[in-house]
């Protein structure tokens, strides 16, 4: 088989993109890894907690250490990593338009494109939400774990999914007080072991509770919260005021699909995975055969699943470019798929597994 000499371009150097690039390079395929940030790693370097999973998923290792190892591996392999490089356009013709350091613009032709652009944090609007001190949980996590700046002394966390409770724990570790974690649903969202370690630190967790408004003049000084009814409407007479200077929003993420849309990838709406996302097959190929989607862009999950999806796409792209034979491709992806399946079990994983199956079925129907 003739080998494609134009590079595979991986957009986004988070866990999914790094793993895709590593698998491509390992197979001997030409690869370019681009990221708009000054440093690679995506969100991994903010994750100071020990990861779940099994040993082969690197469970028990802290996220930033996984990031460090992936980075070292990509450097050892000699992958061309272009940082400060924003991919601002691409089309179905696989022409990539990149802007470097906001100064130099260039285009290049790719043989395959792997989109690992991640997701964007959601926000909820409420009176006072533009006051300084209202921020997403990811923002607070960047401040404490990357820049080592405490965003405030006393924090209200809105949202009890894993992001909310993990960041609440890390805020405690950084020296802040967490006044409460509130959740509009009748049950807390995150893993019980995460909520339990925050709760035993004395942080109240309030279900069926929402934020009504933030108050303050120069910045957040108070948060007013209230209980909600079955339709998530605040109940009058249940308002309470918490003295806080920071309000963190951990209310879900939405896949960042702009580049996939530009490339003409068909999308599907999957609320369990964060909203609109590109259709993809079992090798993470979108409806445009040369464009793959991996990690949170292909449905919001975890770093561990993102890494396996990146590997799947990297291996398959290398195969489709002529750098791996079908036997080798099957062998390498079989391991990856087994590990991926292991991560999508249990009460939390099964829902995502079922949703992903729906995406695959829809892809099969739309573009057989």
């Amino acid at each position, binding site marked *: 088989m003739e080998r494609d000499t134009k590079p595979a371009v991986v957009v986004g150097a988070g866990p999914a993109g790094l793993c895709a690039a590593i698998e491509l390079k390992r197979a001997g395929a030409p690869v370019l890894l681009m990221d708009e940030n000054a440093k690679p790693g995506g969100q991994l370097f903010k994750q100071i*907690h*020990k*990861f*779940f*999973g*099994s*040993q082969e*998923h690197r*469970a*028990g*290792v*802290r996220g930033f250490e996984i990031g460090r190892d992936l980075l070292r591996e990509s450097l050892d392999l000699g992958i061309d990593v272009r940082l400060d490089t924003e991919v601002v356009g691409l089309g179905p013709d696989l022409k990539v338009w990149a802007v470097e350091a906001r100064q130099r613009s260039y285009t290049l032709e790719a043989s395959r494109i792997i989109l690992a652009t991640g997701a964007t944090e959601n926000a909820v609007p409420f009176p006072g939400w533009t006051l300084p001190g209202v921020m997403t949980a990811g923002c607070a996590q960047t401040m404490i774990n990357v820049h080592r700046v405490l965003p405030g002394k006393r924090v209200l966390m809105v949202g*009890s999914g894993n992001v909310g*409770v993990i960041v609440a724990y890390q805020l*405690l*570790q950084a020296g802040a007080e967490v006044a409460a*974690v509130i959740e509009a649903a*009748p*049950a*807390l969202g995150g*893993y*019980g*072991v*995460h*909520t*339990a*370690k*925050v*709760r*035993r*630190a*004395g*942080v109240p*967790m309030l*279900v069926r509770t929402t934020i009504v408004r933030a108050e303050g003049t120069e910045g957040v000084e108070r948060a007013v919260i209230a209980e909600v009814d079955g339709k998530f409407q605040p109940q009058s007479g249940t308002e309470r005021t918490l003295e806080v200077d920071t309000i963190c929003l951990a209310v879900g993420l939405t896949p960042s699909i702009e580049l996939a849309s530009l490339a003409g990838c068909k999308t599907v709406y999957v609320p369990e995975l964060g909203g609109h996302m590109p259709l993809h097959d079992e090798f993470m190929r979108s409806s445009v055969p040369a464009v793959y989607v991996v990690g949170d862009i292909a449905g919001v999950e975890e770093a561990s699943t993102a890494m396996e999806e990146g590997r799947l796409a990297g291996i398959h792209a290398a195969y489709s470019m002529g750098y791996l034979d079908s036997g080798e491709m099957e062998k390498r992806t079989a391991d990856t798929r087994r590990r991926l399946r*292991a*991560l*999508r*079990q*249990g*009460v*939390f*994983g099964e829902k995502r597994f079922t949703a992903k199956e729906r995406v695959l079925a829809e892809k099969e129907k739309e573009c057989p």
Partner: protein
Amino acid sequence: MPMSPDAPDTSDRTLKTLGAPSLAELRAAGVVPSREEMAAKPCVCVECIEEIPCNPCETSCPQGALTVGQPITNLPVLDREKCTACGLCIPACPGLAVVIKSLEGDRAKIRFPWEYLPYPAKGDEVELVDRLGTPVCGGTVISVLNPVRNNRTAVVTVEFPGEYVDDVISMRRP
């Protein structure tokens, strides 16, 4: 009073509403050792009662006393006969859900994971808390271990009055 393990009351299931499991919920899951067991030998308590994909406790155990098996969302099963209470599972658990408890006369000891600075020191008088973070009694720090292999999860041992052994889970941050 805690419910009997045979008749778990769902109103006592607090993991998904208050954030921490109740004693009744843990008893129903079979992860709470009896006072007799804790008096006989130090007992590992794995307070992990929700199916999540995770098994470092199993791989950390040199005795093969903790089993998760396949799929890795199985809840860990402890074989108390095989367990030597070496404590390697305490820092291995990413969920900080493992403690070791023992009883000696009217005194109890707990070994628990600790990831806050400053670390306590041997001899410190500390306040011990229950699963909801409510202070329940005072205790004396016996040791603080933080070898490299713990990867920054210290293991703190505290001695305290034995009557609180079921409720105590950690200490209050200083």
